[in-house]
C-alpha cells in the first residue's frame, strides 16, 4: 500500500474522532445548562381554539393554577376548628399567599365595611324606582320581614342606616351558591370529618419552585398541630405540579440506574468480564442520550421530565448497535487483523442503517405534532438514535477494529437461538392462526382507544381522588361551565359581563341553571354605577317619600335620618374601578374572575355557571348568549376531553403516516414486494396480538400506547430485517451448499432483543402512567416481533 494514502487514511480517522469528541463536548455543555420542566403544559396544544385559549389561560396562570386546597383531619372537632383558625392566621401573616379562606367570617369585617360604604353603587336593587314611595315601602317591608329571625341579626345592626336592605342584596349576589359546610365557625367537609381551607399562592402557577416553597410554608406552619395528632392533606394544581416533578425526577433516576445495571449484566454475560468491551458498548448509549437532550434543549428551550424518562428506553435500543457491531465485526478468514470493521461495514452496516432509517421515519412523525410534549419525544429519539448509530459506525472501527474478543456465555446463547430458529418455523401456522384470532377479536371488541387527559397525569389515582374530595368540600369544581366574555378595556368587559348576566338571570329564573358568579357583581361597570348614583334622590325628596312610605308602619321615618345622610354621601362618591379596589379585600375575589388585558390580549371576564338540578343544558346556554359579541360558553371538562380527542386523533394520523413512511422506505430499499411482505408479516402480527390482548384485558388505550406501537414497529422491523438478510444471503448461495446460519448473528439478535425487552419491561413497572403505558406495549411487542420474525421468515431447509 502506498505510504501517503495510508497517512491520509489515518488523518481522516483522526479527523472523525476529533469531530465526534467536539460534538460530545458541545452536547455535554448544552445538557448541563438545560432547563428541565415537569408541568403538564407541554402536553397542551400550541395552537388552541378560542375556547381552548380561555381554558389554557386558566390552566397556566389563572387563579385556578394558584389554589392550594388544605384539609385538616384527625383529632376532635374542636381541635380541627382551632387548628384551622390558627393555621389560616399564620398563612395570612406569612406573606406567601394572596388570600386564605377558611369560612371564618370575622375575616370579612373589612370586606363588609367596604361593601356597606359603597352599597348604593354596588347593590343590584338600586334604580330610580327604588326611592319612590312605592319602592321604599316595598324595600323596607322586605327588610323588616327578616327581623326577629336568625337571618335578621345582621340586618338589625344596620337597619336604621340601610332600611331598604341593600347590604342583604349585595350579599345575595356575592355569596357562592356552592358554599362549604360551616361548623364551629370554620369550613368543614360535608360529613364534618375534615376542616377545609383554600389559599391562593402569591407565586405564579407556572413557577413550580415558588409553588413548592408555598406548600412548604403550609407544612411548616402546620407542624405544631401535627404534634397534637392532627393530619394535614394538601392538593391543588400547584401541589400536583410539585409532586409530579419530584416523582418524575426520582423515577427517571431509578430507571436509569436499573436499566444500566440490567444491561451491564447482560453485556457481561455475553462478552465476559472485559471492562473495555463494556465501556465500548455503553458509548453509543451515552452519546445518544446526550444528543437527544441537546437537540431537544436547542429546539424547545427546555426538556420535559417525561421525555427524559422515555429517553432511558433509548439505552435499550442504542445498545443494540453496539451489540451488533461487537459481535458481528469478525475478521474474515485471511483478512488479517483489523479487517473485522471493514467486513462489518460491508455486510452488516447496510442492514443496521436501514433499521435506523425505519426508526427515524417512525419517530419523525411525532415531530409534526401540535403538542410540544410529543414533538419532544420524537426529536429526542431521532437525535439519540442517529448519534448512537454514527458513534457505532464512525468511532467503533477505531476503538475495536475486530469487535469484542470475549465470548462469555454467548456460544451457548447462539446455539440455543439456533435451535429456536429451527423449531419456531414449525409453529408458523399456529402463530398465523393466533394473529387471525387477534384481528377478529379487535374487530369484534369495542374500540379500546378511550384514554383521557388524566391518564397523562403522573400523580397517582389516590391524589386525584383526594383532590376531587377537597374540591367537593370547598365547592371549587374545576370541570364546570364558564361563560367567558372579552372586550378591549375594563369598562367594556364589565358591561359585557352585565349583558351576559341579564341573559343568565333569565335562565336562572327559568330553572335552567341555579345561578352564576360574575365579576360585575363585585365591580359593576362604570356605566351601571353611574346609573345607580344618578338614581339617588336629594335629601328633601327622599325625606318626603320616606315619610309617606313609612306612615303607619313599624319603623317611623324620623328614626331613619342616618339613611338620608348616607344616601346624600353616596351621591358624591367617586365610581369604583379595578384600580380603586386595589388593596381592598375584594381585589383577590375580583382577580379570580377578571383577567386584565394588554395591547395584544383582550380583557376577559369569567362567569362561572352553577348547574341546575339536571346539570347544565349547554344548547340552551349557547342559544341564550348567541347574539352577544365576544362571548363564549366553555365547559372545562368537555374542552379538556375534546383537546385530548384531538390530540389522540392527531397522534393516530401521525403514527399511520410514520408506518407508511417505514413501508415506503423498505420498499425502496428492498425493491422486492415479496421481501417487503415477508418483513411486514411478523410486525403486523405482533401489533395485532398486543392490541388484542390489551383490548380483551379492558385496558383503556391512549396516546402513549400509540407511541408504544410506533416504537414496536420501529424496533421490531430491525429484527425482521436481519432475518430477511440471513434468508436472502442463503437464497443467493448456490443450491446444494449447506445453509450455515451464522450463530453469532443470531446471538447478536437475541441479545439486542433481550436488552430492549429488559429496558421496556422496566418502564412497564414505572409508576408514571406515561412511561408505564409505553413499556406495557413495547416490551411484549418487540419480543413477539422477534419470535414471529423467526417463525415467519425461516431459513430454507438445506
Amino acid at each position: 500500500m502506498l505510504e501517503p494514502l495510508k497517512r491520509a487514511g489515518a488523518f481522516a480517522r483522526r479527523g472523525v474522532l476529533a469531530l465526534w469528541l467536539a460534538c460530545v463536548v458541545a452536547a455535554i455543555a448544552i445538557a448541563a445548562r438545560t432547563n428541565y420542566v415537569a408541568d403538564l403544559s407541554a402536553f397542551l396544544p400550541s395552537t388552541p381554539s378560542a375556547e381552548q385559549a380561555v381554558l389554557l389561560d386558566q390552566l397556566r396562570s389563572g387563579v385556578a393554577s394558584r389554589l392550594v386546597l388544605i384539609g385538616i383531619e384527625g383529632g376532635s372537632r374542636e381541635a380541627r376548628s382551632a387548628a384551622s383558625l390558627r393555621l389560616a392566621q399564620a398563612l395570612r401573616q406569612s406573606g406567601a399567599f394572596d388570600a386564605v379562606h377558611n369560612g371564618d367570617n370575622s375575616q370579612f369585617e373589612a370586606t363588609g365595611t367596604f361593601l356597606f360604604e359603597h352599597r348604593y353603587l354596588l347593590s343590584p336593587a338600586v334604580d330610580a324606582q327604588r326611592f319612590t314611595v312605592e319602592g321604599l315601602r316595598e324595600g323596607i317591608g322586605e327588610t323588616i320581614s327578616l327581623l326577629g329571625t336568625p337571618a335578621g341579626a345582621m340586618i338589625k345592626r344596620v337597619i336604621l342606616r340601610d332600611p331598604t336592605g341593600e347590604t342583604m342584596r349585595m350579599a345575595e349576589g356575592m355569596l357562592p351558591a356552592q358554599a362549604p359546610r360551616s361548623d364551629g365557625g370554620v369550613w368543614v367537609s360535608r360529613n364534618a370529618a375534615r376542616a377545609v381551607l383554600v389559599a391562593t399562592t402569591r407565586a405564579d402557577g407556572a413557577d413550580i419552585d415558588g409553588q413548592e416553597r408555598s406548600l412548604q410554608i403550609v407544612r411548616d406552619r402546620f407542624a405544631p398541630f401535627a404534634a397534637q395528632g392532627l393530619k394535614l392533606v394538601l392538593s391543588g394544581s400547584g401541589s400536583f405540579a410539585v409532586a409530579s416533578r419530584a416523582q418524575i425526577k426520582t423515577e427517571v433516576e431509578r430507571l436509569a440506574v436499573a436499566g444500566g445495571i440490567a444491561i451491564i449484566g447482560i453485556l457481561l454475560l455475553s462478552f465476559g468480564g472485559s471492562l473495555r468491551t463494556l465501556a465500548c458498548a455503553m458509548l453509543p448509549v451515552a452519546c445518544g442520550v446526550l444528543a437527544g437532550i441537546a437537540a431537544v434543549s436547542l429546539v424547545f428551550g427546555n426538556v420535559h421530565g417525561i421525555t427524559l424518562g422515555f429517553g432511558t428506553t433509548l439505552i435499550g435500543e442504542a445498545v443494540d448497535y453496539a451489540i451488533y457491531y461487537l459481535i458481528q465485526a469478525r475478521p474474515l478468514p485471511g483478512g488479517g487483523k483489523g479487517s473485522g470493521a471493514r467486513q462489518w461495514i460491508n455486510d452488516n452496516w447496510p442492514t443496521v442503517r436501514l433499521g435506523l432509517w425505519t426508526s427515524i421515519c417512525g419517530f419523525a412523525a411525532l415531530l409534526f405534532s401540535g403538542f410540544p410534549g410529543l414533538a419532544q419525544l420524537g426529536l429526542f429519539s431521532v437525535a439519540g438514535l442517529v448519534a448512537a448509530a454514527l458513534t457505532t459506525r464512525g468511532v467503533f472501527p477505531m476503538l475495536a477494529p475486530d469487535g469484542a474478543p470475549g465470548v462469555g456465555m454467548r456460544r451457548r446463547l447462539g446455539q440455543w437461538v439456533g435451535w429456536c430458529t429451527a423449531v419456531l418455523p414449525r409453529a408458523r401456522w399456529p402463530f398465523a392462526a393466533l394473529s387471525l384470532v387477534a384481528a377478529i377479536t379487535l374487530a369484534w371488541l369495542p374500540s379500546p382507544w378511550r384514554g383521557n387527559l388524566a391518564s397523562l397525569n403522573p400523580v397517582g389515582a389516590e391524589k386525584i381522588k383526594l383532590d376531587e374530595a377537597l374540591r367537593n368540600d370547598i365547592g371549587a369544581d374545576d370541570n364546570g361551565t364558564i361563560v367567558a366574555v372579552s372586550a378591549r378595556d375594563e369598562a367594556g368587559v364589565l358591561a359585557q359581563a352585565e349583558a351576559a348576566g341579564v341573559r343568565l338571570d333569565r335562565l336562572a329564573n327559568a330553572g335552567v341553571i341555579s345561578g352564576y358568579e360574575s365579576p360585575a357583581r363585585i365591580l359593576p361597570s362604570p356605566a351601571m354605577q353611574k346609573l345607580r348614583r344618578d338614581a339617588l334622590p336629594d335629601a328633601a325628596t327622599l325625606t318626603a317619600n320616606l315619610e309617606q312610605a313609612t306612615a303607619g308602619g313599624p319603623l317611623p321615618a324620623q328614626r331613619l335620618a342616618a339613611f338620608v345622610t348616607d344616601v346624600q354621601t353616596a351621591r358624591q362618591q367617586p365610581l369604583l374601578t379595578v384600580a380603586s379596589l386595589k388593596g381592598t379585600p375584594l381585589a383577590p375575589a375580583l382577580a379570580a374572575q377578571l383577567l386584565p388585558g394588554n395591547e395584544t390580549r383582550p380583557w376577559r371576564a369569567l362567569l362561572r355557571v352553577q348547574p341546575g338540578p339536571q346539570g347544565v343544558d349547554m344548547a340552551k346556554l349557547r342559544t341564550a348568549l348567541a347574539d352577544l359579541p365576544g362571548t363564549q360558553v366553555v365547559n372545562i371538562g368537555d374542552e379538556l376531553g375534546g383537546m385530548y380527542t384531538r390530540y389522540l386523533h392527531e397522534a393516530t394520523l401521525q403514527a399511520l403516516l410514520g408506518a407508511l413512511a417505514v413501508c415506503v422506505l423498505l420498499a425502496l430499499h428492498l425493491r422486492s414486494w415479496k421481501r417487503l411482505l415477508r418483513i411486514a408479516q411478523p410486525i403486523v402480527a405482533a401489533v395485532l396480538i398486543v392490541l388484542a390482548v390489551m383490548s380483551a384485558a379492558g385496558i383503556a388505550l391512549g396516546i402513549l400506547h400509540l407511541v408504544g406501537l410506533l416504537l414496536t414497529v420501529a424496533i421490531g422491523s430491525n429484527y425482521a430485517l436481519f432475518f430477511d438478510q440471513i434468508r436472502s444471503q442463503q437464497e443467493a448461495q448456490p443450491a446444494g451448499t449447506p445453509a450455515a446460519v451464522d450463530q453469532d448473528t443470531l446471538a447478536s439478535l437475541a441479545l439486542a432483543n433481550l436488552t430492549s425487552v429488559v429496558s421496556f419491561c422496566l418502564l412497564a413497572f414505572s409508576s408514571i402512567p406515561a412511561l408505564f403505558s409505553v413499556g406495557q406495549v413495547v416490551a411484549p411487542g418487540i419480543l413477539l416481533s422477534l419470535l414471529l420474525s423467526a417463525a415467519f421468515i425461516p431459513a430454507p431447509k438445506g
Partner: protein
Amino acid sequence: MLRTDRRAVLARFAALSVVAMLSLPLRAQAAFDLPQLTQLLSRVKNSEAVFTEKRMVSILAQTLMSSGRLSFAAPDTFVRETLKPHHEKVAVVGNNVTMSSGSRSRTVPLDSVPEAAVVVEAIRGTLTGNRELLERHFGATVSGTPQRWMLELVPIEPRLRELVKSVQLAGQQSLVREVTVAMADGDRSVMTIEQVASPKPASAPASN
C-alpha cells in the same frame, strides 16, 4: 333556736331535692320522653298546614304579623310560604335551601349557613320525628303528656346559642301546634299552626 330551725328546714329541703332529683328520671321515663315523642311524630309522613306568626322585635314600634302555608314530606322536605304581608318562600329539600322573594330566588346548601339551619332543623327534625338529628344539634327536653306536650330545644353549638336561645314546640299527639323561637337578644316569634289536611289514615292516631 332559730338557727336549729333553719338547719332543720335546710336539711329537709336538701333531702327533698335529692328525692326529687332521683325520682325525676324515673318519672320522665314513666311519663313522656323524647324517644316516645319522636316515635309518635315520625308516623306522620306528610302534612299541609296554615300558620300565623307574631314577631316581637325590640327596635320596631309594632308587633309584626304574618301568615301563610306550611308543608312537609318525609324524609327531608319542608316548605314555608308566607302569603301576607309579602310573598316569600323558603323551601328546604335535603341539604338545599331555596329562598324566593318576588322574582328573585337563590339556592344555598343548608349546612353552609348554620344560623339558618338551627331553626330549620328544629322544625324539620320535629315534624319528621328525627330524634338523631334533634340530639345532634340540640339539648332536647320533653315535658307534658302525649295529649299536651312541649319540646324545648337549646342549640348545643355555643356560637348558635349566642343567636338563638331556644326553640319551643308545643303539640298534641303527632301534631305540632305552636313554635316559639326565642332569640338571644330578646326578640321572639310565635308561630301558630293549623292543619288543613288530616294526616293519612295509615300514619297516625289523630283521634283524642
